[in-house]
């Protein structure tokens, strides 16, 4: 087959796409199911907004009380100099990420690290990568698992927000249960690789057994104030995976997978 770029290509491709969907008849629209799930999601967002507002009120109250307590007859003390603003200081608290290190080390002569970042509000610069800007105003959250090998962020070609997933607040039950192999080459199938799991509740650790018998164990960490978890191990170049086991806090085996390589 040898097709040249010509004006005929477009109608031909359109016809081919029409043929591809021909015969696929979707089931009736699950309007009720979508509405029910949408309402539940909306209710969760409203609850989260109320909690965030309450936290702000408490924070302001906590600042006000000590300031009020300064009143008295003593000589006026000079106010402290304002701190030099930095981007983190300038950003409202809700836009600052909550971070936790899931693991780091050195392997194959290079360093690696994985950090979990939770953004309570979708950062404005990420809005274009996810829902439209309207969602940023509505407070959509973001969970990111930042993976580095040799100071190079995996998937950096996909932009600043590669490795991030939109979530609904700090306790979105949809996040969890995924695993992946990541690397800088061949989409995680060769070279030094990171096995990164965002396990569901109850998983305290994971062990990856390699073809040479080595057992690598990662402990589950949780981003503070959230239910977003992560455990990670680094796979040396040239090694393949025999099994991936996950354990609960009592070291009881919860799951075993043998399809990873």
């Amino acid at each position, binding site marked *: *087959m*040898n097709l040249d*770029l010509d004006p005929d*290509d477009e109608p031909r491709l359109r016809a081919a796409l029409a*043929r591809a*969907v021909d015969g696929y008849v*979707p089931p009736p629209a699950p309007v009720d199911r979508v509405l029910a*799930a949408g309402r539940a999601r909306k209710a969760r967002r409203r609850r989260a907004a109320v909690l965030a507002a309450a936290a702000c009120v408490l924070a302001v109250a906590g600042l006000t009380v000590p300031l009020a307590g300064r009143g008295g007859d003593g000589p006026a003390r000079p106010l402290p100099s304002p701190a030099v603003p930095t981007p983190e200081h300038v950003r409202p608290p809700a836009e600052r990420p909550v971070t936790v290190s899931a693991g780091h080390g050195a392997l194959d002569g290079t360093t690696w690290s994985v950090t979990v970042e939770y953004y309570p509000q979708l950062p404005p610069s990420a809005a274009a990568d996810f829902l439209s800007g309207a969602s940023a105003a509505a407070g959509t959250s973001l969970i990111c698992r930042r993976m580095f090998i040799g100071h190079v962020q995996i998937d950096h070609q996909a932009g600043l927000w*590669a490795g991030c997933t939109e979530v609904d607040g700090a306790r979105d039950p949809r996040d969890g249960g995924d695993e992946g192999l990541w690397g800088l080459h061949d989409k*995680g199938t060769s070279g030094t690789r990171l096995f990164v799991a965002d396990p569901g509740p109850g998983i305290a650790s994971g062990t990856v057994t390699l073809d040479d018998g080595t057992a690598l164990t990662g402990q589950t960490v949780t981003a503070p104030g959230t239910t977003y978890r992560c455990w990670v191990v680094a796979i040396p170049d040239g090694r393949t995976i025999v099994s991936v086991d996950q354990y609960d806090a009592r070291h009881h085996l919860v799951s075993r997978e043998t399809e990873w390589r």
Partner: protein
Amino acid sequence: MHSSDRRAAADGPDPDTDADQDAEFSLFVAARWRALTHTAYLLTGDFHEAEDLVQSTLVKVFPHWRRVRPETAEQYVRRALVNTNRSRYRRRRVVHLLLPSLPDTPATRGPAAGDDRDALLRALADLPERQRAVVVLRYWDDLAAEEVAATLGCSVGTVKSQASRALAKLRAHPALADHPLPSGLGDPR
């Protein structure tokens, strides 16, 4: 309800406004479900995933529906669909690479496997995610390059270059060479 009314409504629960919003959203879902599912099918290559993708997209969109203007609702939902698919694609791509036995092509309820339609789906599946989205939006949803650019959040030039590269890859794809499409892209000239 007009969009400005929706935006003017208070953010707090308002039974009347919520009921209007629900009714409007339900109408949209009922009217656009089939078209969205077809788009999702071409994006994912699997009808189960297509239906899941459209459902999860609509659930995500629902809380924002009050802010969506009627004239841009279609584009808004399509953009959410593409972005949700992008997240899904990123999370699963390694699993699919390492598990070739997983069905990446439609199962029995979709078009019959092994025919030229299946070949095109396999060729589409091998395109990078963004190129596939460009092909589906441009040539299936029939959007102008400017609309595709707005949907994907990129420039018109990027859309054109991605479309050109995607067409070149589709032409060279072995699945299409094995399954010439009598009235499609694989048609010998």
